[in-house]
């Protein structure tokens, strides 16, 4: 199992997941750089993402679409905020129109990806940040959730085994 750790940091409304791959850092970097590879892992099984633009530069952007619930494609995009090959990547992600311009009322979220060489290959740490829990909740498709990011962390602590 590549994932070694994942956790929620409620004060900053962020989620962090650490994984290790038995592959060189440049190879892991390609998973993000090459759109044909990105679209093989970004969408869940049965909902493949098609990247119709992947301008892997700063300030560059990507446009992708995924099959929506009604069969119509749902468009979304990435904006590259920082690219420091092959160590660091910072991306904003959110719903867009066909031109890649932000669309809808759900704020875009940001994630940072850090890559480092380790003995076993490469460690990749993804930190996803949300402006608030409402964004997180709506992104996940549960509708509106206002309120306390602190409470989320508390629940997490409460239920920890």
């Amino acid at each position, binding site marked *: 199992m590549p994932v070694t750790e994942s956790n929620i940091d409620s004060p900053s409304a962020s989620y962090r*997941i650490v994984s290790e791959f038995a592959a060189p850092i440049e190879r892991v970097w390609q*998973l993000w750089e090459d759109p044909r590879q990105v679209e093989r892992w970004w969408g869940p099984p049965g909902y493949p993402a098609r990247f119709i633009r992947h301008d892997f530069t700063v300030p560059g952007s990507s446009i992708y679409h995924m099959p929506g619930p009604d069969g119509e494609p749902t468009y979304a995009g990435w904006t590259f905020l920082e690219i420091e090959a092959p160590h660091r990547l910072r991306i904003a992600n959110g719903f867009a129109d066909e031109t890649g311009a932000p669309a809808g009322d759900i704020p875009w979220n940001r994630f940072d990806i850090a890559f480092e060489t380790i003995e076993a290959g490469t460690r990749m740490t*993804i930190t996803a940040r949300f402006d608030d829990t409402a964004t997180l909740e709506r992104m996940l498709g*549960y509708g509106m959730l206002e309120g306390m990011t602190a409470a989320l962390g508390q*629940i997490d602590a409460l239920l920890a085994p």
Partner: protein
Amino acid sequence: MAAGSVLDDAEVDRIFQALADATRRDIVRRVIEREQSVSELAGRYAMSFAAVQKHVAVLERSRLVTKSRQGREQIVRLESATVRYARGLLDELDRMWRGRIDRMDAILGEAEGKGA
């Protein structure tokens, strides 16, 4: 992914408002371990019985706990479906990224043996 949400927006709001208070979080923590009577809970905090009872009422309205009468005691129990729902949101995010990372790993696996 909007599968089987059991709570409407107002209910979710109430849950997070209820858990915004340290005493109420502590009550939930104790009730997770085992059910407690209101008077038992009241004995643990430097506040009046009535104040503790009010906290329990807030938790009850948010459906984090239930309260039932047992003889002369009011027993507070965890309403775990509600707590699990909030936790479920985080699990959903975690599942999404774990899925992505597993797919990345599979792609990297293909490259092996090709001298990549």
